[in-house]
């Protein structure tokens, strides 16, 4: 199989994604309608995700990397998760780069974008000449074939435990994004960028920021940054409201509120929540959408706070040069690194989660 053919298949997918992105195209209109009514996202949240974060025109160099990163397989099976409504696009792209026969099982909770992409490819004769794609209800790979899994760690370990031997497996599990704010930085603009990262996909993605660390920050500085972020999230929340929370999610947030009131503070609005931890010892994430923990401290304190969970960090955003972040960053080599405001726009060069990438691949990127 040539890389040219693989790239051609991905390009057909990109064309299909452009239709999804286009709010005037019948496919784009259908996507918007279904994502609101079937998945429960707000119209503004859907528009933001499809209009600005569905990657349809990647840098050619990135596309080359995506194709180069994919390992050829006779067939590639893909199990998709919910959470990020556009995620199916990149996952299918990576599968098409790997194989001319792709079988996709979309998330039951959020099948919309996957189905619309698959339908368009199936109707495209030019695509049919270089590949095939099928929507399936269950995953049944055979030895020698490839399986790309996206989802919770528990789901993935359940699936992988029952797989036959000889499956070429790529599992992308639980993860979250980390934002870093250095001691000497002008913080208000960073808070605004971070707010933008958090609002996209309602903060549900595996790149979404869940923890903000302020290097060498005093309690007053931590509180000031949280207050600024609160203000920015209030403003963005009016423009792009969060999806409606379930009673369980609201109850979880209420419990977290009590915890953070003791740890340092709690700021929330109709569409977001911020927990402040003034003396970080053990990581405690907030349970629901558009929620983030803001904390800070010295190098050793932050490293010890995050250390046991460093393997779950998929993305590190912000200025990581200050020495106070040195010990923290050492074990995070496999995470993507970017500027604040770019957490949800990783280069279209492979899966968003590169924690499984080997060192050779990483060097290439």
């Amino acid at each position, binding site marked *: 199989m040539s890389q040219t053919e693989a790239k051609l298949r991905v390009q057909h997918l990109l064309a299909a994604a452009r239709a999804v992105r286009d709010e005037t195209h019948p496919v784009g209109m259908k996507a918007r309608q279904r994502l609101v009514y079937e998945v429960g996202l707000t119209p503004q949240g859907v528009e933001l995700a499809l209009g600005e974060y569905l990657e349809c025109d990647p840098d050619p160099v990135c596309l080359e990397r995506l194709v180069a990163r994919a390992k050829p397989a006779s067939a590639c099976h893909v199990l998709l998760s919910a959470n990020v409504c556009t995620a199916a696009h990149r996952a299918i792209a990576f599968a098409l780069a790997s194989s001319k026969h792709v079988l996709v099982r979309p998330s039951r909770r959020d099948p919309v974008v996957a189905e619309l992409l698959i339908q368009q490819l199936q109707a495209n004769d030019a695509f049919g000449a270089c590949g095939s794609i099928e929507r399936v209800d269950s995953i049944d790979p055979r030895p020698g074939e490839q399986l790309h899994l996206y989802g919770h760690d528990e789901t993935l370990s359940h699936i992988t435990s029952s797989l036959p031997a000889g499956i070429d497996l790529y599992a992308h599990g639980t993860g979250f994004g980390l934002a870093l704010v250095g001691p000497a930085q002008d913080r208000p603009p960073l808070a605004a960028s971070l707010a933008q990262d958090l609002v996209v996909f309602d903060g549900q993605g595996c790149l979404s920021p869940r923890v903000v660390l302020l290097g060498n920050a005093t309690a007053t500085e931590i509180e000031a940054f949280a207050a600024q972020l609160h203000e920015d999230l209030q403003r963005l929340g009016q423009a792009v409201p969060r999806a409606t929370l*379930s*009673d*369980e999610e609201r109850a979880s947030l209420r419990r977290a509120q009590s*915890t953070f009131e003791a740890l340092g503070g709690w700021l929330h609005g109709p569409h977001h929540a911020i927990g402040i931890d003034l003396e970080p010892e053990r990581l405690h994430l907030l349970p629901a959408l558009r929620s983030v923990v803001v904390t800070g401290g010295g190098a050793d304190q932050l490293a010890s706070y995050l250390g046991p969970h460093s393997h779950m960090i998929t993305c590190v955003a912000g200025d990581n040069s200050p020495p106070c972040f040195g010990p923290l960053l050492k074990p995070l080599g496999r995470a993507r690194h970017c500027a604040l405001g770019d957490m949800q726009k990783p280069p279209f060069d492979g899966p968003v989660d590169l924690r499984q990438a080997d060192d050779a691949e990483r060097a290439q990127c």
Partner: protein
Amino acid sequence: MTVTTAEASLRRSDALHERVQRFIRQSMNAQPETTFDSLAIEIARFQYDTNPLLARLYNARQVQIHSVSGSEQLPGVPTDLFRLKRVASHLAQHDRRCFETSGTTAHDSQRGRHPMRTTATYELSAMSWAPQWLWPDGDDLDFIVLAAPEDREPQSSLGFMLARFAETLQGTTSWHLSGEKLDIQSVRARFASSIREGRRVLIAGTSFAFVHLCDAWIDDPVSLPAGSRIMQTGGFKGRSREISPDRLAHMMSDRLGIPLDHIVGEYGMTELGSQLYQGQLRGGVDRYHPPPWLRVKAVDPLSLAPVESGQIGIARFVDLANVDSAVAIQTADRIRLHSDGTVELLGRLPGASPRGCSLALEHLFDDENAEPRG
């Protein structure tokens, strides 16, 4: 905390422990000289003065500690806090014990910890209430413990309590759990000797241990001597398959020959100094009975305000035995509180469905401790 302040705190703590112990003793026989509320508020004021975490929580809730007039006004400290921070009014150097929540070893760093500078109040609380519900008909019982011995797991509050039971009961005690492995052969030998000698037994352990025990007796049910009973506590936490409490009770009854009305549930948490028991052995209902020094409320999970009697809410405890940690505790356990003060346990409040791959980190945000201890 300066040395002088620390010493003053210890003296305050000592005085409160004495008062709580007096309250416990008096409430078992007559009307205590102090009211529950006044003692709870004094403990809360002590904790407010000595623990910045609790002071922050009170301030955030705008609770004026010096004008609180009832224990229901005290904010419940979420059990989560016990695994994130040291919840104690004393320095670590004064710890006599530190009880820890059970959990998978993978998440050791996320275990809840309840430091104790004295175990005397805990012990008095446990040993004043348990006999009422577990051996109201006399303490001449052999004791079969499906838990690790206290010296092997000194961090287990359950192990500590069962060791005190062992000191009180007249019969022989044996321990049959090592790590997470139940020694079926030694239990089999103990059963045989109890049956042979016609000695009634108390078997105590966690739900997961009883599942393993029942599995071992699936083809070979025994009939333990009349008057034998079971104390069952805690959940499963992934250490055995999960079975509904009702079904587990029937399994235990069928396979061990113990009548259903001799199977008593205990509800305790590492974060609490007091326990609740089901009341069947005293001819009462099978709902859970709190001691007079533990007040239970069912509260709304969103507003945290008490719900009407008989309605479902999540359990909030005010536990006078928690002198040095947090007197008011908020759990995520669903309960129904009846007008007679008894409690129905309805399982854990379902957590938010993980809606994102970044939200699947249950052990980082979910309240593992909300499950009764195991």
